[in-house]
């Protein structure tokens, strides 16, 4: 049976302004994350994803609530937690004039590594993240993709049991983003590291995450596997018909199971609660026209996101 990486109950976080006004950023977050899963925290900008990850990584503290990381209390056992976790931040930043190797060495030293263990860990990460060619390049001279790889390499230096990845592919070109996702999978699988990541890129979450929590205005509005979320929300499927000839589109509204209709001359996009009966009724309505093509598209996480962010 897998262990629990994160157990959060009733987490609240607010920021006080200079004049004492409190802005609530997270409200009553309760969730449990297993160590054998890649868990995604999704939500629109400003929904509280980075704040939640920062609280889980003990970088900042919650105002209220109970939080256990790797079975340790986040208030009283912070140092023991920090030894076993690491983070790769959104927009990775490191001291500019240190090279890749020097940056890794510096952070390994902060984790109390020394001698051959330090050298081995630095070399291993340089090799694992394909940074050999760039080991003596200063951080300020690296491309965005390489900075991201360095950030992931740094996150693995202390051989953590749990890593937090805050928007790990933001700003990367598609090819590098795919490589980064492969790296994340590899880290999780080969190193048996529990991964918690935030993203607002839905295909990434769908591709990587075993389970997902959706945040909106600091509240958790849903939490489940991507497939269950799609099923639970009854988002329907999109049926796209290309046709020529006369069709009374208005009649579509009276067909049971039709949820939304978008029509242009020659194209009808219908969101339906799909059953064979419903599809049959729609096809029959197009009997007076010639159907050129029919596509039926299942809802994706993007649709879930749009529905939940509404």
């Amino acid at each position: 049976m897998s262990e629990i990486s994160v157990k959060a109950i009733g987490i609240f976080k607010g920021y006080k302004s200079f004049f004492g006004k409190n802005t609530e950023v997270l409200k009553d977050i309760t969730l449990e994350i297993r160590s054998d899963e890649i868990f995604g925290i999704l939500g629109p900008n400003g929904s509280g994803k980075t704040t939640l990850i920062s609280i889980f990584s003990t970088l900042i503290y919650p105002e209220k609530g109970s939080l256990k990381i790797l079975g340790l209390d986040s208030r009283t056992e912070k140092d023991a937690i920090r030894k076993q976790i690491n983070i790769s931040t959104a927009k990775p930043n490191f001291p500019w004039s240190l090279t890749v190797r020097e940056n890794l060495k510096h952070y390994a030293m902060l984790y109390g590594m020394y001698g051959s263990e330090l050298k081995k860990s630095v070399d291993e990460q340089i090799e694992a993240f394909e940074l050999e060619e760039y080991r003596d390049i200063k951080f300020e001279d690296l491309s965005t993709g390489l900075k991201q790889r360095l950030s992931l390499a740094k996150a693995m230096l202390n051989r953590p049991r749990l890593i937090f990845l805050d928007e790990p592919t933001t700003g990367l070109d598609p090819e590098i983003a795919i490589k980064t996702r492969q790296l994340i999978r590899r880290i999780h699988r080969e190193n048996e590291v529990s991964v918690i990541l935030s993203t607002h890129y839905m295909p990434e979450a769908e591709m990587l995450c075993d389970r997902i929590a959706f945040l909106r205005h600091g509240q958790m509005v849903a939490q489940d596997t991507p497939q269950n979320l799609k099923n639970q929300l009854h988002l329907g499927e999109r049926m796209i018909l290309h046709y020529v000839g006369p069709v009374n589109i208005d009649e579509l509204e009276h067909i049971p199971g039709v949820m939304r209709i978008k029509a242009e001359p020659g194209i009808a996009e219908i969101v339906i609660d799909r059953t064979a009966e419903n599809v049959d009724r729609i096809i029959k309505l197009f009997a007076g026209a010639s159907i050129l093509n029919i596509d039926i598209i299942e809802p994706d996480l993007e649709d879930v996101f749009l529905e939940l962010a509404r």
Partner: protein
Amino acid sequence: MNWRGELNKYLASTYKNWIISKRNVFTLFELFFWPIMGLLTIGLLTRFLNVSSNTVSFLLVGSIALAILQTSQMDVAYVLLFDMWSKSIKNTFIAPIKSYHLVFGALLFGIVRGTFVFGILVVVSNRLFGFDFLAGGIAPVLIFLVGVYAMAAVIGITVCISILTFGQKADVAAWSLSGVVLLVSGIYYPVEVLPPALQALSRAIPLTYFLEYYRSVYISGPHNIVLGALLAALYLVVGLMMFAWSIERARRTGIMLRLSE
């Protein structure tokens, strides 16, 4: 964790400051240009005013102390300033480190740089103005340097606390605090010339006592080095506690996140 791992937590900041310094052309100004310019200005002023040899020693000791203080206190402050400027504070504070690892690691590098500046200024003051800084022997020099480095650590810690309390704009404090010390600790004049309120303040600053101690090597006069040492130790301990508290506060208020954005 064994002692080597613990030692490396301190040396991490020494290592970072060293690499950044060696690649920064500004370092040349910090180590050579400003200290030498400061010493030359004061030395030449003593010639113009045709002051006694006692006054020359008084002023040159002050000038050298100020140069070491400014160099070393910047190194302690740099431990957070570099992270703040490169927006990498998150990466530092997610590691299992304490405030004292950062301060003493950075101070070690500050001591190396301060001692380098001291060596240069001792040679320059001797060659150009005939002032022998080592006339009293090695022990007074070491006591004096320890006092200056302790003061540098206290100022550097204060800058770090300001950054974590007030955010990014607080780095102005880094450039201003040694100016306040310059005014009240009797760098270029005896503290007796200050107004009574400032005199009381100067008596609360350890550097005042270390300057009076070292000047007594050249000009006989009273000093209370024990009180200076006790004050320096007290401020260091209180400073480290306040720094640790300000880190925890920055985690509670979220300043820690804003400093990385």
